């Protein structure tokens, strides 16, 4: 390892510090307040590239976190740091660099295309702004190269309207677009939840190759623990805006400690008729509209709840030296 990379290795690539986001409750909007992020902290190392999963159900705040990392969502408190720089307080130059280094893939591979333009528009937009290649020819070569990385032939997809392409082609174009900029981080917001089984492995495979060959880190936002288990290195389990359990994926999913993680894992239907669903029945979902403000948000559904759970949010406790942390009063000494 050279000294230069040592320096970057010390500062994390991405760091989220005590991020808080609350929706609603304003004067005009009224309605109840939704805690989308409750003091969330996580960090991604620069090298080697890793895939970090943020997993949770709908309403867990995982998409808000993605939005905050991409600069779409303003935090109410806390910071998002990219290579040590606060995203909210960047200079023009830093912001340019950040835009180039942090890219995204979204859930819906259709909506990301402006229906008015050809698919080329997406590439041209980036080309022009970031000056990735000089001249038409070089630009074209760059695009073709990026498309090849994701297994697409440029003749099949360029110069077409998005509706003329299949879902798999569209999603791969998105990845190619992100790759072309040679980013350091790609935020993948549910990239496989709207594609068929056969395409799912194709896209996950591309993500793995980009991590290994191009040294691109991923923040993989998902509701699907199984795909996270298969491709991720680290995982953070979210529940209603709180990180309930995090650490290396084998530790968290193989040896789940938080009752919520355990419930999630037990609820996954196994593609094996001989292995039943287990006996742990989830509590009913309508008991959960009680909004716990200070305590553990999982309290209303938790099978192991205790008195102190309502009182205050449990701090994250490290279980071992691998980084496996859990936020549950069961483990607070």
């Amino acid at each position: 390892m050279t000294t230069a990379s040592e320096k970057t290795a010390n500062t994390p690539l991405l760091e989220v510090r005590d991020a808080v986001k609350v929706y609603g409750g304003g004067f005009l909007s009224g309605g109840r307040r939704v805690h989308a992020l409750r003091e969330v902290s996580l960090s991604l190392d620069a090298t080697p590239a890793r895939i970090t999963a943020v997993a949770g159900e709908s309403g867990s705040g995982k998409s808000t976190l993605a939005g905050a990392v991409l600069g779409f969502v303003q935090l109410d408190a806390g910071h998002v740091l990219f290579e040590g720089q606060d995203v909210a307080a960047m200079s023009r130059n830093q912001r340019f660099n950040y835009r180039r280094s942090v890219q995204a893939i979204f859930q819906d591979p259709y909506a990301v295309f402006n229906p008015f333009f050809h698919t080329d528009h997406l590439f041209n937009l980036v080309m022009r702004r970031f000056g990735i290649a000089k001249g038409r020819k070089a630009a074209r070569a760059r695009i073709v190269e990026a498309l090849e990385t994701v297994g697409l032939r440029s003749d099949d997809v360029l110069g077409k309207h998005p509706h003329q392409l299949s879902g798999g082609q569209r999603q791969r174009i998105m990845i190619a677009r992100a790759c072309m900029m040679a980013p350091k981080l790609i935020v993948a917001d549910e990239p496989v939840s709207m594609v068929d089984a056969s395409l799912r492995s194709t896209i996950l495979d591309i993500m793995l190759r980009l991590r290994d060959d191009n040294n691109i880190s991923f923040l993989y936002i998902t509701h699907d623990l199984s795909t996270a288990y298969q491709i991720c290195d680290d995982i953070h389990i979210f529940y209603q805006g709180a990180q309930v359990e995090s650490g290396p994926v084998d530790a968290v999913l193989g040896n789940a400690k938080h009752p919520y993680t355990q419930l999630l894992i037990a609820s996954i239907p196994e593609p094996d008729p001989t292995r039943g669903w287990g006996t742990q029945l989830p509590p009913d979902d309508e008991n959960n509209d009680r909004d716990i403000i200070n305590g553990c948000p999982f309290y209303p559904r938790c099978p192991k709840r205790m008195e102190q759970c309502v009182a205050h949010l449990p701090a994250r406790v490290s279980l071992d030296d691998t980084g496996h942390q859990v936020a549950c009063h069961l483990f607070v000494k």
Partner: protein
Amino acid sequence: MRGITKGYLIKRLTMLVLTVWLGLTLMFIIPRLAPGDPVAAMVSRLSAQAGRVEQSEQMIQAWQERFGLDAPMYVQYFRYLGNSFRFRLGYSMAYFPTTVEEMVMRAMPWTLGLLTIATLMSFTVGIAIGALIGWRPTPRVVRTLLPVSLCFTSIPPFMLGILLIYVFAFGFRVLPFAGAYARGVSPAFSWAFVSSVIQHGTLPAAAVVLTSMGHWALGMRAMMITNAGEDYMVLAQAKGLRPGRVFWMYGVRNAILPQVTALALSIGVIAGGSIIVEYIFTYPGMGYLLYQGIVNNDYPLIQGVVFVLICGVAVAVFIIDLLYPFIDPRITYERG
């Protein structure tokens, strides 16, 4: 939480007050922006007229008091707002010493009656036609014939009014062409009077109804078609419900919601259109009163009529807004 919540009520009330205030302020600003100081011109015209009018002094005084022309602008403004909210609209210049309130009160019932009936009719008939055209199981014959009834859509109501007068009042001479009731009949709750009112109201109402129902029909048709693809429509059919029930409770009931919103939005336009219809038919309502004001340069009358029109429309919109939560349970829903 059902029906109207406090927050919703406050929002709609704010809107009502705001609309009326905006209208009043416009009425206040317009004469002061007009070229050549029309207020001064008005006063001079007033003095010229005073030769003919006995209580001229009193009239000019009342006029100046109302507008408080020598006071600072903000004093004038607040005095004006105060007077308006107490429904003191001043004296008519052409019919002194009749007050504008009196004249408006005399004209209002006619407009209110004509407009309410015409609007409700065009809305319900239009909705019914649109619902039938947009409903797949409607017999093909009906779906082909019904759109014919919409042929007057997009034509301004007053133009249709002229045509109707020409055909029915001048040509066939079956219906009267002017006024609200026959000259010989005195206003009383008698058959002669009521039938006369209905006869006189038919053509103006027809002019409004025939020209506006097409818009409701088109909006309704679009929503019925959009609705037909909704999952709850498929489920209703799967449940084996009678077609009538699917049509009303699942189709019409949902498709009508956007039309009610559209109704609230277009009341102002409908009221504007009916002003001119009344003028064409010399119907003794607000529209005709307004025309008289224009002809006589009777500015207090014009402003008074327009102020009352603005209030009336704002109140109508407010009422529709208050009814809305009862037909759409989602509107005031807030969790927690």
